[in-house]
């Protein structure tokens, strides 16, 4: 039997039963590879359920830094007989299957290497309590893998010690379980696996974290003091991360009181209402949610847009429509956020591509919302939000100050002859606002969602209302100055064709571009990071004959937005759409593009097209 042989370049998948404690063992395995200096991307593919259903955990290790999901599994750890059939079918030819051989099975795959480890039998005597045995069994396969893949056992021991710090009693049984697996493999599975991990230094300056953790931290760094939220997968851990870091950094040392507010609201309507109320008062506030929450919040979003109140909304996108696939990833709320609410509304969106950008955009979003006095959506997704990514370390410039926008102080008001809440004094469409309690006689006004004039007075005069609506649009048209610019994958344009992509697709783009180049189809690529679009986006489209827009949704929502906002000829824009709920793969993109390029007369290079 031939065996897949590789060093620091493989995909391993764990098939478990949810609620069995497997995720933390699998996470530990991923972290051990990261600590060995190899970039890694663990992805938890879990059901919307607490206990008993199949759950998977895919880990891709890649010295090349290709960290997107890749179909085809090199090594499968099959721990769930319920899903054996499907799991075994996924294994690449010459790949490996490790299963609990306490109950022997035939798998009817002649082309794979089957590694039998009697996990249950091995622990039955050492751990008589069936409940803890279930947990320790996970450490046994981790121990076996440590031997099989040649990952330093000490790395695992250190991770166990860190994980159970404060619960010392748990350290030695976990190490014991690890040793049982390691020793069994050493004795019975010598040379059984040719996939190896070799120490490297490719993760220096890198961290392993998820986007929700990063965004919660970014909110603390961005000066948010109020988080109002309602539990919804996959955004919950963002709010929890904010709370975790506030508990670390925002407790008053003298009084023990909280220099922040963390409110679990009764629903999404209340959570956005609270965030708006706090921002109206000048306290930076945000809410975190997912698609269904955005649907509920849209009336309030329109109020904040029209009354010009800053507010930050994190949308950790999941599979829709309706309840959809709540534990799977998608980029399918582009349009529902861009144009959220009734009437003419358009909203600023920031689209991070990895946890580092989640941190940065979270912190930036409060400056942008305050500057523009408008809602700002940060559109992450489940893949970035809940999975750990290998990404560069977070950075912060200590000279940075918050941009709180045009807020009038008591002194400002004292020296002003007159003031109108919605007067465009500077010609940028952005008016000056006042906060309640600032001045005893000046600056009070009535905030409302009904039509109003420059002095915030209720009006039903259509001319005044149209003037106000046009001013708000002016604000939006100047917004790109404050937003992150697109990122290009090439110094200058080398191809007649271009790819536009965004968000978590970043994980696979370099791999896909390399693949396309090796197949003779080099192609330019640009990653959109914000809406409204920068002029660079129009230039890029203009400079290429055809544009592929890669999206993780069915309806080509970004394409629609580009066509609508840029008045672009739709015939020029070709969609590459993945919407099965699994993170997009490089192969999916490359195959789709190669199909088109080999099929038509589309030019391959910029030279050809001249």
């Amino acid at each position, binding site marked *: 039997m031939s065996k897949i042989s590789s060093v620091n370049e493989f995909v391993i998948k764990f098939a478990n039963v949810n609620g069995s404690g497997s995720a933390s063992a699998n996470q530990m395995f991923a972290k051990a590879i990261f600590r060995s200096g190899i970039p890694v991307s663990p992805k938890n593919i879990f059901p919307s359920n607490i206990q008993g259903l199949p759950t998977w955990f895919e880990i891709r290790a890649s010295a090349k830094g290709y960290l997107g999901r890749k179909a085809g599994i090199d090594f499968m750890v099959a721990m769930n007989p319920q899903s054996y059939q499907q799991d075994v079918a996924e294994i690449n030819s010459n790949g490996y299957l490790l299963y609990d051989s306490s109950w022997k099975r035939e798998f009817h795959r002649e082309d794979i290497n089957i590694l039998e480890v009697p996990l249950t039998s091995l622990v039955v005597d050492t751990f008589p309590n069936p409940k803890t045995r279930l947990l320790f069994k996970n450490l046994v396969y981790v121990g076996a893998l440590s031997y099989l893949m040649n990952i330093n056992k000490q790395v695992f021991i250190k991770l166990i010690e860190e994980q159970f710090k404060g619960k010392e009693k748990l350290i030695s049984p976990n190490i014991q379980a690890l040793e049982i697996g390691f020793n069994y493999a050493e004795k019975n599975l010598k040379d059984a696996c040719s996939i190896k991990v070799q120490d490297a230094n490719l*993760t220096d300056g890198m*961290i*392993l*974290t998820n986007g929700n953790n990063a965004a919660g931290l970014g909110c*603390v*760094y961005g*000066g948010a*003091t*109020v988080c*109002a939220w309602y539990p919804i997968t996959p955004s919950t851990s963002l709010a929890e991360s904010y709370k975790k870091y506030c508990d670390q*950094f*925002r407790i008053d040392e003298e009084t*023990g009181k*909280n*220099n*922040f*507010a*963390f*409110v679990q*609201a*009764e629903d999404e*309507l*209340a*959570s*956005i*209402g*609270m*965030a*708006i*109320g*706090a921002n*109206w*008062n*000048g*306290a930076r*506030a945000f809410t975190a949610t997912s698609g269904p929450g955005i649907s509920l919040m849209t*009336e*309030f979003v329109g109020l904040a847009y029209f009354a010009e109140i800053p507010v930050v909304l994190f949308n950790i996108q999941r599979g829709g429509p309706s309840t959809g696939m709540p534990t799977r990833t998608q980029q399918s709320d582009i349009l529902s956020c861009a144009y959220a609410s009734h009437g003419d509304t358009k909203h600023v969106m920031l689209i991070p591509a990895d946890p580092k950008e989640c941190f940065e955009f979270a912190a930036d979003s409060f400056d942008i919302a305050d500057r523009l006095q408008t809602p700002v959506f940060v559109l992450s997704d489940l893949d970035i939000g809940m999975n750990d990514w290998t990404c560069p370390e*977070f*950075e*912060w410039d*200590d000279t*940075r*100050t*918050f941009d709180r926008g045009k807020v009038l102080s008591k002194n400002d008001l004292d020296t002003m002859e007159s003031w109108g809440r919605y007067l465009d004094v500077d010609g940028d469409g952005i008016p000056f606002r006042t*906060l*309640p*309690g*600032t*001045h*005893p006689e000046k600056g*009070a006004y*009535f*905030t*409302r*969602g009904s039509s109003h004039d420059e002095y915030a*007075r*209720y*009006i039903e*005069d259509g001319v005044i209302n149209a003037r106000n609506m046009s001013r708000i649009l002016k604000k939006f048209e100047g917004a790109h100055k404050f937003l992150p610019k697109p990122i290009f994958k090439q110094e200058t344009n080398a191809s007649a064709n271009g790819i536009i992509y965004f968000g978590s697709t970043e994980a696979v783009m370099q791999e896909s571009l390399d693949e396309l180049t090796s197949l003779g189809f080099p192609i330019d690529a640009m990653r959109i990071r914000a809406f409204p679009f920068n002029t660079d986006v129009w230039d890029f489209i203009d400079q290429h004959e055809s544009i592929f827009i890669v999206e993780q949704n069915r309806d080509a929502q970004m394409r629609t937005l580009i066509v609508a906002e840029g008045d672009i000829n739709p015939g020029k824009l070709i969609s590459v759409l993945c919407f099965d709920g699994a993170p997009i793969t490089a192969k999916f993109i490359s195959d789709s593009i190669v199909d088109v390029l080999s099929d038509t007369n589309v030019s391959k290079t910029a030279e050809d097209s001249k």
Partner: protein
Amino acid sequence: MTYIVKPVNHHPNLEKNDLGLTRRDYEGTISTLCAGCGHDSISAAVIEACYDLSLSSDQIAKLSGIGCSSKSPSYFLNQAHGFNSVHGRMPSVATGANLGNQNLLYLGVSGDGDTAGIGIGQFMHAARRQLNITYIVENNGTYGLTKGQFSATNDQGSKSKYGEENLFAPIDLAAMAIQLGAGFVGRSFSGDKDQLVPLLKAAMKFKGFSLIDIISPCVTFNNHAGSTKSYDHIREHNESVSSLDFVPIGQEITTNYREGTKVDVPLHDGALLTLEKLSRKYNPLDKGQAVQRLNEAEKDGKVLTGLLYINPEVKDHAEILNITNKPLNQFTDDELCPGSAKLAKINASLN
């Protein structure tokens, strides 16, 4: 013009309060509600209460939802910031505003449609959270702005202007608020200024959720014979359980009460609430009894008014959340941002 400019010339000899302000300094723009609307009497009572307490308008925030009632914050306290939010969602906006700055006095103004209909969820949760707000419901049992549909507080069997009978039992907001743990619950009548003003003053001084459900007849759509929210009906069926005096800190209690009928309730800031029980059976500190009496009154077709329930021991939302005393909107960049050195430690913990 859809707003009406109000003359600002004041009579030079107008009476002044401790801040040197006259009642007119507490006014708002001219009301655009129907002539005789109960809501305008409530606005007048709010002006009177704020004047009496010598409150500084800029330290008050007025918030409302949507409807006739929610328009009324425009008609008082011109120097206070106002926020006319979305239908039924004022409680959440007020909750957020309060989290941003707990030092302001929050006046929530809502109606029976806004609170008992579309916004009942937010109302209930604000009460349950003990949001520090004076929550006024201008309750007329009807949707005025959309021309006279029944609201959820309309009594079963009560007739609409068009002769239709209301088929459903009413929601009693006061009873509901008491059950949800609101610290201060009163009911009054827009036509009874003597009862309403002290009740408003006490509510504004109360730290926690204070509801005043004010029956406020709609002269256009719900003031006819057969309506149980008309001026005539309320005057005939009003049963007051208590008479109230609000005594600010350091002032003497001057009113004489019949023996055995006086109850003193100290408030958070040391001010005193003095109650005269008009019904010997009624004790507003007893939650169970308050609910029971409301139920009995409903059966008898009476409208129980006055301070129905008070719990001076409650902690407000910010206190429950252990939020620092300094308003969260007043923290500086340095106080909020942990800086790069701490970030380096976080980075180290993630590799």
